[in-house]
Every structure is written in C-alpha cells, then in structure tokens.
C-alpha cells in the first residue's frame, strides 16, 4: 500500500501568557491509502493539534517550529493559504466532535451540504441538489428530499452527525479526519455511526485518521493505532499488536484502567497527572507516573524501538541492556488471551 500522507518530525508550540507550550514534540507517522489510523490519548496529549495541523487549522498563537506534512508530494507546512483552501474540504475533510456546534443553525441542510460542491466542484444548483440527495441517502438519512430543506435543530444528535459526515464526504476526499466523532453520542447511536463510517470507507476508499480517547472505539475501527502522550507518539502498531502485545507502560496503564467483561479485581489507575508542557521534562515525559521507570528515563527521552515491521514503542524497557520486568497482570492476561485466540483460529482452518 502506498502512503497518502507522511508526517515527519512535527514540532508545534503555542505562545501563551505563561510562556511557550510545547504541544507537539516530534511526531512522525504515515497514513496508507484506505486504512484507518486511530490516534489515542488523553486531553492535552496533542492528538487534536496533530490533526488540525494537517488541515492547517491551528489558532493564531500556534507555531509549526519544525517538520513536514507531505501530502501528494507537497509539504503542507509550506503551502500558502490559497493552496490550503483548494485542499480543505476537497481532498482532506474533517468531522468534528460536536454535531450541535459544527453545523450552521441558520442554514438549511441542503445549503450546507452543497457548499463544498459549488465551491470545489463548480456544480450548478441542479447538479448539487442531485448530489446532496445522493449523499443523504448514502449516510442513511430517511426522507432526504423533505429533510434537506430543514434546519439543524430539527434533527437529533445522531442525525446531525450523519449530516456532518455527508458534508465531509461531499467531494470524495482522500483523507477524512474524524476528531472524536462519536464522543457526544449515546452508545447505540455511536455504534450506528461507527458502522456507517466503516461501510462508507469501503465504498469510497478513503483513508481515515480517527482521533479518540475511547479504547473500545479504537478496537472497533482501527487498522493501526498510535498512542500519544505529552506531545509524542509513545507506541504505534497494528490494532492487534497494540491491544494484545503492548510494550509501553503508558499503553499498559490505559488498557488496564478500562474494565473489560472479565475485570473482577481492582481497577488499575495510572497515578498522578500528565506533565506541564510549558516546561516538558528532560527525559521520558511518562517517567514520573511510571512504576517501571529507570534512572535513564529521567535523563534522556527514549527513541522509538522497533518490535516488528509495523510495531514501535518509545520506552527504554526495550533497550537490550534493560532489566527484565514483570508487566501488570492485566497485560499478561491480554497476551495469553491472544495466544489462545490465535491458536484457536489456526485450528479452525485459519480463514484469515
């Protein structure tokens, strides 16, 4: 598979009254055609800033200090505003978290969906109306002909998110960035929207960057997962590698702090709070919360260690000189569970 997007050593800071906040501190990744990459992390970890920088939608006080965002052979960091306008909404589109605020309350649905069609594809009224109807059918909105004349307040939260998705898909974008698209929705509605997104991805073959803090959602949608902490990717791999063979203690903590159907004993909680990025720690940013931290973690930030062709983690525990440690019970259970499931699948004839 070819790469549609390559982000190289991205560094972004924000000027604030208190000083410079180092929000993104050297993020590199690539996105393949047709895949879903999930970026997981807590509030303030930099996952939304990363995605907004791809669209160049950062606020006034943001500085891209270093790095490249290569899309279709072009570095978006250097692109002019005019060039970006030709990309935004057409080749890279975005779905936001809150469908209540990302639609214009004073415009009909039809007008909002046809906006990118008229702007980017120079469609006339009849063409855009036809396409709008198509899109609303695609996202499963009932009675599209009647409803496209209505305003956002006449729709439920789930329906509004379907409309937002229709707008994002209007120009068949190469990349769709979904920033917590289901966080504001109820579980049954969330399930419907996730099903819709997967179905549409197959139909129009778009790549998705899916930003979320919900590991259940990640397990559902992602092909690959990047775990973000304090402005860096700390672990990256296929969804199976990250969930069943996690290597970074922060990933361990995240997985162990979510109850599964099997959890009966006490829930693991990562102690402490994330670091202040006004003054990022010298070594590994997770060290103060990490029970497996070694002396070197406070002195030198770990590089990305390679575990497999697709699996990387930034922890000194993977260094050849690191002592052997005993991962938490919950993580060992995950690895065993996977071995069992994997073995079972082979016996079934291995249809994968």
């Amino acid at each position, binding site marked *: 598979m070819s790469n549609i997007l390559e982000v190289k050593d991205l560094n972004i800071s924000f000027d604030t009254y208190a000083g410079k906040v180092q929000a993104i501190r050297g993020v590199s990744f690539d996105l393949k055609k047709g895949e879903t990459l999930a970026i997981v992390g*807590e*509030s303030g970890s930099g996952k939304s800033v990363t995605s907004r920088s791809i669209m160049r939608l950062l606020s006034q006080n943001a500085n891209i200090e270093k790095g490249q965002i290569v899309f279709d052979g072009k570095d978006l960091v250097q692109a002019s505003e005019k060039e970006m306008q030709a990309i935004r909404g057409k080749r890279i589109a975005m779905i936001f978290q809150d469908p209540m605020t990302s639609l214009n309350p004073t415009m009909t649905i039809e007008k909002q969906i046809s906006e990118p069609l008229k702007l980017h594809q120079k469609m006339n009224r009849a063409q855009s109306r036809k396409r709008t109807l198509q899109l609303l059918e695609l996202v499963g909105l009932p009675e599209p002909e009647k409803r496209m004349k209505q305003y956002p307040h006449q729709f439920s939260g789930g329906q509004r998110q379907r409309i937002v998705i229709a707008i994002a898909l209007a120009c068949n974008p190469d990349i769709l960035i979904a920033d917590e698209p289901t966080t504001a929705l*109820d*579980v*049954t509605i*969330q*399930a419907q929207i*996730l*099903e819709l997104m997967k179905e549409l991805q197959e139909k129009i073959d778009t790549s998705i960057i899916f930003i979320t*803090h*919900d*590991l*259940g*959602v*990640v*397990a*559902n949608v*992602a092909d690959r997962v990047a775990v973000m902490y304090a402005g860096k990717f700390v672990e990256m791999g296929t*969804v*199976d590698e990250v*969930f*069943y063979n996690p290597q970074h203690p922060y990933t361990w*903590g*995240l*997985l162990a*702090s*979510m*109850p*599964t*159907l099997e*959890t009966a004993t*006490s*829930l*693991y*909680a*990562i*102690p402490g*709070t994330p670091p202040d990025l006004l003054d990022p720690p010298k070594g590994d940013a997770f060290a103060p919360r990490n029970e497996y931290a070694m002396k070197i973690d406070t002195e030198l930030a770990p590089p990305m260690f390679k575990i497999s062709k697709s699996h990387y983690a930034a922890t000194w525990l993977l260094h050849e000189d690191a002592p052997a440690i005993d991962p938490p019970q919950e993580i060992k259970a995950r690895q065993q*569970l*996977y071995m069992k*499931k994997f073995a079972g699948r082979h016996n079934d004839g291995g249809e994968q």
Partner: protein
Amino acid sequence: MENAKEKILEVKNLKQYFNPGSKNEVRAVDGITFDIFRGETFGLVGESGSGKSTTGRSIIRLYEPTDGEIDFQGTKVHEISKKKDLLKFRRDMQMIFQDPYASLNPKMKVRDIIAEGIDIHGLADSKKERNDRVDELLKLVGLNPDHASRYPHEFSGGQRQRIGIARALAVKPKFIVADEPISALDVSIQAQVVNLLMELQKSQDLTFLFIAHDLSMVKYISDRIGVMNSGKLLELAPAEDVYNKPLHAYTESLLSAVPLPDPDYERSRKRTAYVPRVPNNEPEELREIVPGHYVYCRESDVDRLKKKRAAYDNKK
C-alpha cells in the same frame, strides 16, 4: 451481606412529569419502583433522555414528584416539612455532580467550598476544628491540605471531582447520589476516581446511587443495576446478571452496542437493534423472573423469560 439486607431507600411508583397536563408534557420518569439496600452501590444506566438523572434528582428532592413515593430511612422524603427535619435529610443524603467545572463556585476558595456544609449544619465548634476537618477531608480524597486556600480554576478535572467528593463527605452523609461523576474525566483519571469512590464506600460506610451511561464502568462499580429507557425501569438485577444474563431486549441491545478494548471481540460483535413493543391490552410491569432478577414485561412473557434465564444458568 446477602442476608442482612436492610432497605435504606424505597422508590414506589415514582412519576416525574414536566409540564403536566399541557401539550408539551414530558413523562421523564413514568412509574418506577425499586429499593436500595444499605451499603450497596446501585447503578442506574440508560441513554440520554431515559430519565436516569431525573430519578436521582427526585430522590434527593430537587423536584416534587408528580406521583409516587420515596422513603428514605423510613421517612417520606417529599413530606418532610419542618426545617429541622429537612436539614437532617440534606445532611444524610448528598450529591456528586457530573461536571466538575460547573459544580464548584469559582469565586470560593476550596476550603470554603468544602466547609459550606460544615458551617450550615454547625458541625464545627471552632475555626480550628473546621479547618482541621477540611484538611482531613482533602487528605481522604487524595489532595494536599496545602491546596485548601486555592480556587477551583487552579485544579485539573480529576482534582476538581475530588473536591466535589470531599464536599459531599463533609457532612458525613449516609447516602450519595452520584450523577455521572466520571463522564467528564479522562480514562486514566476515571479509574482513579472510581477506585476512590469504592474505597470511601468501605471506609465511610456509604450507600451509592451511581448514575451513568458507561456500562462497563457501571458493572465494575455496582452491586445491582437498573436499566432505564423512556422513563421506565426495564430490568433490575445483580450487576453480573445484567451483563451475562440479560433478559430484556433493550438491555441486550444496549450491551451489544458497547465497544470493548478487544479487537478480536470487536470483529465478531453483532449489534442487535431494539424495537420497542407495540402495546396491547395486557399491562406491562416489573416482574420477578428469578429471585432478585426483575424484568418489565407482560404476565404472558414470564414463562418464556424463565426459560431464557434457565438457559443462561445451564450454560455456565
């Protein structure tokens, strides 16, 4: 615990309508009945609009119910009229709110926020006693007593929720209504707060009504769970049974929609949609299928549900 069950709260046929009688009448809670036993955590789950928060608010007497009765420690909550009795009720029952940003007064110092209840109920004889008590509470919820002179904006979401918990505990309540206390927090912080609540329950001898929409967390924290939809309680059972032996179609649908952090499970998970039944003449009500496991159903459903439950039991 099983045989020493003492009811601390009884909700009987509670109805909470908004704009009753008018065109836009909303039946937020429509005739629900359940008990909560002393020392347990009762989880109330449902989607937005199911009436779960309204139920919590009616119980703590933030609303006057349209019909029905709420008994707390043998007293009818909505018939308390003397100021002294109401004060006592407010002391025994406290609330923890969802949004730790909106539920703390930004103009008050943490010390005064936590001590407000102590002052109202006159629980401290001197300023020193008051301050000592605040320090003790801050330590209890895992905060530094030195932080008492700070304002809420100086704290993170998780820390604010701890302040909210300390405030609730200040008057030594017996019963706490926790309305989505962790929904606004990050995953790693959620686990911290949930563990804190469970520790406090043991050390402070508390009973919890835990209202939430996150089913996996509710299962983990609750002894028993009630599932609500459209103002009705559709299923009520021990937490394990609601999860592993769901009987009502709505519960099954809700469980099938929850994504779990397990890619292999996610690949095979099939969601079942919930289609509400068309009402007929037969009345529906909460009926006990096996001891402790209640389902909202018709009399003619009971045999089928008993078989369904037995099939689960035999599978184990």
